């Protein structure tokens, strides 16, 4: 009898086990959350995760079941005290950087943050150089009235009225 039990136990005796964040990112490094704050932070963190089955929506916004599962996972991890970095890292390890809506500031990805700032600096430089160039050039400042020009609309109308025909 015991022999049979020993045979059977390894199979029936196993407990259900699902993969856990702990295997991926270790122990929780923050404080467990609850109530309103938990609800709020769940929304904030899941807004940083991309729903893998939708096209571009965040886990916070997507109605799909996959996103709902992920959101539930985020809530559970926050309640256990995992930090935002840990949670994001957990999803990154299984889905890849694809799942992070906010690009990580490392390697090639850092460029997406750097380029616009560089463009800003270069742009400001160009604008101020252009202003200086345009103000030191020796040209007459134009008057407020439209330049007197044969195809000028206003003059043409006046000429028409006076009976001058086409310009």
């Amino acid at each position, binding site marked *: 009898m015991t022999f049979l039990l020993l045979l059977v136990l390894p199979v029936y005796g196993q407990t259900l086990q699902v993969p856990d964040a702990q295997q991926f990112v270790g122990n929780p490094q923050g404080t467990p959350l609850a109530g309103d704050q938990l*609800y709020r932070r769940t*929304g904030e963190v899941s*807004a*940083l995760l*991309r729903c893998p089955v*939708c*096209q*571009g*929506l*965040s886990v916070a*916004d*997507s*109605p799909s079941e996959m996103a*709902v599962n992920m959101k539930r996972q985020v809530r559970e991890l926050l309640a256990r005290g995992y930090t935002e970095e840990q949670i994001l890292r957990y999803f990154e390890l299984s889905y*890849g*950087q*694809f*799942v*992070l*809506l*906010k*690009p*990580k500031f490392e390697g*090639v*990805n850092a*460029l*997406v*943050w750097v*380029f*616009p700032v560089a*463009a*800003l600096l270069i*742009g*400001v430089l*160009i*604008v101020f150089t*252009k*202003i200086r160039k*345009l*103000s030191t*050039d020796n*040209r*007459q*400042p*134009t008057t*407020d*009235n*439209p*330049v007197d*020009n044969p*195809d*000028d*609309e206003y003059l043409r*109308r*006046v000429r*028409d*009225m006076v009976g001058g025909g*086409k310009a």
Partner: protein
Amino acid sequence: MIPSLGRILILASLLVAAAGSLLGFVTGRTLSADGLKWARRFAYFYAALIILATLVMEYALLTHDFSVSYVAQVGSRLVPTWVTVVSLWSSLEGSILFWGFVLGSYILIATLFTKDRYQEYMPDAIGTWLGCATFFSFLIAGPANPFRTMSPIPADGPGPNPLLQNHLLMAIHPPFLYLGYVGMTIPFGFACAALIKGRLGHAILKPLRESLLLPWCFQSIAIMLGGWWAYEVLGWGGYWAWDPVENASLLPWLTATGALHSLLVVERRGILKGWTVTLVQSTFLLVLLGTFMTRSGVFNSVHSFTQSAIGPTILVFLAAMLIYTIALLALRIDKLEAEGRIESTASREAFFLLNNLVFVLLTFTVLIGTCFPLIVEAVRGKQMSVGRPYFDRMVVPLGTALLFLMGVGPALPWGRASKEQIRKSLLMPIITAGIFAVVGYIANVRHPWTLITIALGGYAIHVTFNQMFVPMIQRLRKGESAVTAFVEGQLLRGRRRFGSYVVHAAMIVVLVAIAVSSSMRQTAEVHLTKGQTQKVAGYDLTFTGIEDHQEPHRVSTIARFILARNGKQLAILEPRMNQYETMREPIGSPDVYTTIAGDFYVSIAALDPVSNSVAVNVYVTPMVGWIWIAVIVMGLGGVMALIPPRTPRAATANVGDSVAAETA
């Protein structure tokens, strides 16, 4: 019969456009009056053919002629008539035909309105317009052919994508978008003509401005309708996700707005000509890029059409236009001579330059963010995402900078200003800014950035209204009655100025409303069984039951709620889940209670008819309705600025006043 008729019309339009384009460019070199006359005739002929082809398709749709491949693809006997009309642009092939329709209409109007004028530029402009028309007719004739013959002829079709049938906004968003997008071809033509001639004379500025402004108005409204549609239909309670296709619609709008402003500097000071032309051409190139992004399947998006052979073809055209544009600019930009100068940094001109800087930065940032995942994948083979958190972080400071510029810029005069003038015009609005900030604080706004935005908004509104009513105030000082002063000064003579400042005022409202609606939004997840009430954000939400509703093409399950506050019933909300025959999963449809203060928005997360319980997401968003209305006002302001001034007879009466009002 109809497929053949359609095909013939399209092929004819292709030939006519190609011939007309060639003729236009040849006439640009030979300068023959006859050549121009014929080029214009070809333009009219092209327009007639493509418009006719579109009407033929619409006829086929309405008569459910399933022998036509496109009708078999999107037609259905079960859907309401308005859906049938609208299905013309619901799927890829039909939408390109619709593009041709809008392009033909624009070319028709542009050719008509330039009769006997701008002879110097018209041949090359027509050449460019018809060149673009040739490409699109080629698409319709070839890769995107909606007129293929079906054999055997099916008895019925699946109808357009159900997501597009959920809401009436689906009927108007695409036409507005096309009126905006496609319309940018016309100013592109003028800009190219100016470059080819090596001259951006004063005369051509008016058609350039007007042909840029009209599509701009449509585009503004189209972008807003897209956001409003996403808000009312998609169920996640927001209106802008920085999705690649949303960005595609925004990019040309940004450069067009920049171009409109720098055009003003060209008009007043004769400088920045090359830059303005570059912006106008960039706008058209971004339109092509946008349509590529939407149709090629390269970008992962909610709205994109499925992958097709059209992608590579559009890319080739985009590359060709890039080469055309760069070549023109490289060879001719130096010929566009500056006629004036900037006198001081504290002048309106300088602030226009800063305005352009901000718009270019916005364009660059949105473009880089959208394309970056593609770049990384091409270079490194890795997949990454650039989503809403990135764009919000990068765009918000630039938006705030715009608000600041809108406040200070119009307060400064053109040319040089005395220290006294500057101090006077810049100090007064600070009081309004303060008042706005206090009101915001009282209304529970605590987020510092939002308070700053509100204050800047107040500042800018003060300056805008000040400038807006200058003509009227001038007349009041002369002793006219208020009504006459308003009607004459603002509406009859000062439309361009008035319209422009209306646009500014509306834009300020949009920026402030976006800031407030984003930072002050409250969300809640509510689970209720039948008869239960829950308090949400000061409101009482009662779930009264589930109901099924059968329609020919779908089954709707409605969850009914009563919304009340302080005991008074405000509305009945009916979010629903629509199950279409052709889709596996039902599509949710939220319901919204809108007031001036804000919206109460409910969308179903889960439904259980067995236990009569429901789980809903509730979003209480202040001021979001202001965004839609402000953009409509913005479009109307732009249209007002477009209406040409009164006939010469009346103009002689008060010439000086008209000039003062015209030059903003």
